[in-house]
């Protein structure tokens, strides 16, 4: 049985200009120990998905419908205190900006120890020991001293390590990392990604990595879910997504990327047009207005096609060889 199963998730936000549907009927599942990358651009609904799983959607936002089964229970049906027990203990989350997610007036050690005391019922001394142990695990030098530092005394990379230490301190079954390396420099990013990979192998926790960076996904994730306009447009193994993308948006995304393994003077092929305006979503496929291969029926709701071997795409034309069709035009 899957560890996490999201069915038909719909999360909306009430705004001055009307209701915005940030996540629109998303379904996917995740096995224990799996690493799934959720890729999408701003407004694709990737962060709202993770906040919905954690039930951290606050007004004016609302989870309108859907089910989120975690370890056999629907998280959306749990009472608040039951959910508090799941949050931080069974499912942990790390955010993009470690400075704003750490409390500036508490030491790093106190913040890790708090989680351990709360969820694992350890006493003060034990919790502090665990905090030091966790900091050692994420390779903070001289952890027995740094445990008494405040967040501002840590560098950006160290803060993100401390966040990882905190998230993993209760041995969660699922770790959701929302753009964990976006605020970091590339050499520090490499360190943090390596660390996450290692800890994942060691603890066996499932990971959902949310990012806009396709390179980071290729490096870390076995499976990839591509989101656009609030829903999944393609799902598959990293190899399927990067080598044989079937949805024009995924293809466009890969073609628009300047990459080190392509000829330096190759011209980029951008995706024309602008990202969808969430207030005026297209009726059918959200990508249709920007799509080169658009058909009339793309303006109606497009179902998901199973391409075999776990590869899914939400596109009428995903079985055609579109790049060849495009070249022939």
């Amino acid at each position, binding site marked *: 049985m899957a560890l996490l199963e999201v069915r038909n998730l719909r999360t909306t936000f009430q705004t001055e200009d009307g209701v915005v549907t940030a996540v629109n009927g998303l379904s996917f599942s995740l096995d224990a120990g799996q690493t799934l990358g959720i890729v999408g651009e*701003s407004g694709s609904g990737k962060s709202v998905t993770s906040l919905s799983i954690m039930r951290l959607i606050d007004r004016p936002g609302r989870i309108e419908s859907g089910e989120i089964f975690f370890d056999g229970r629907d998280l959306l049906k749990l009472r608040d205190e039951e959910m508090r027990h799941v949050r931080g203990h069974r499912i942990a989350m790390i955010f993009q900006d470690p400075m704003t997610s750490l409390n500036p007036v508490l030491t790093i050690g106190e913040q890790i120890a708090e989680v351990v005391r709360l969820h694992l019922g350890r006493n003060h001394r034990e919790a502090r020991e665990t905090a030091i142990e966790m900091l050692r695990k994420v390779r903070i030098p001289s952890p027995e001293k740094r445990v008494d530092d405040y967040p501002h005394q840590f560098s950006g990379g160290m803060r993100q390590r401390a966040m990882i230490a905190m998230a993993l301190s209760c041995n969660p079954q699922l770790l959701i990392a929302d753009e964990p390396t976006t605020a970091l420099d590339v050499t520090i990013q490499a*360190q943090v990604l*390596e660390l996450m990979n290692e800890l994942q192998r060691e603890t066996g926790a499932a990971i959902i990595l949310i990012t806009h960076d396709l*390179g980071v996904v*290729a490096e870390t994730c076995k499976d990839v879910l591509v989101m656009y306009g609030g829903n999944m447009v393609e799902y598959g193994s990293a190899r399927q997504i990067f080598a044989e993308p079937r949805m024009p948006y995924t293809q466009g995304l890969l073609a628009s990327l300047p990459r080190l*393994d392509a000829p*330096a003077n190759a011209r980029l092929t951008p995706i024309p047009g602008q*990202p969808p305006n969430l207030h005026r979503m297209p009726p059918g496929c959200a990508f249709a207005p920007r799509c080169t291969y658009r058909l009339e029926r793309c303006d109606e709701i497009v179902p998901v096609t199973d391409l075999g071997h776990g590869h899914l795409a939400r596109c009428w034309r995903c079985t055609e060889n579109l790049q060849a069709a495009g070249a022939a035009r």
Partner: protein
Amino acid sequence: MSDEKLLEVTDLKKYFPVSAGVFGRHVADVKAVDGVSFTVRKGETLGLVGESGSGKTTIGRLVLKLLEATSGTIRFEGRDISDISARQTRMLRRRMQIIFQDPYGSLNPRMTIGEIVSEPLAIHGIAKGKARQERTVELLRMVGLQSSHLNRYPNEFSGGQRQRVGIARALAVEPQFIVCDEPVSALDVSIQAQVLNLLEDLRERLGLTYLFISHDLSVVRHISTRVAVLYLGKIFEVADRSALYEHPLHPYTQALLAAIPVPNPEVQSAQKRVLLSGDVPTAMAPPSGCRFHPRCPFAFERCSVEEPAMRDVGGGHMVACHAVENGTIQ
């Protein structure tokens, strides 16, 4: 591209004073830019890459005279502009312009797109009345916007469109030289490619020269003719694009390139990376000798004592590293 030097920067320094206590005692300096020299030839794009705190943005502002340098000279079109008056600086802005990173913060939300783009025309007295209007429309077209956008406000536009407005504003005075300070970093990938292509087209069409500042090595490789790598206020390596990416010499450049995640899962599994340990030190007290030595896998005694000088290793490939000089790295 000619060999004509459009911009020549020599031993440029910028120290920001740090004060402490009630009397604001001067206690230290942040050496944001600490003795940087480079040239930009007419018609080329010089990419300036570095991580946060490397001083890349400060260099851009110093060149444009948006910041006063602590010492060093800047020559533009053969003329020393290090100590020119405010009036001359204003004249200079007709020749050199800047495109900022944040298309949200750099456009006045109370001005229409038309007002934003035509403002430089008014300030510099370039065009009036109907001519100004026509020129504004022409500028919008140049960057892929339409005349129907003239009376709209920045908040009605997406990030990519706003960045186009920022480009149109920079082009209004018909500059020779544009400092592009992380112009695509705030944009989504699909939009980033649109703006990069636009910048390339404009360079070709208008014969522009760019100083392209970015932390993204893939983007810099794509757009630059030559590339300079910065670390803690110093340039470590300058070379033609192909030399720098295919044959990087400085250990920092090598580590930087190795750290970039490549969007190809097959490559990933095959390749094992050199990871740099440690964090970037503070620019307030940079390490002695070569400031990279505490993190450098090739560091030896001399590196902690003596700062390496820039040397030409052939074909204009300049590198400042003792290990390259003594042949450890080839």
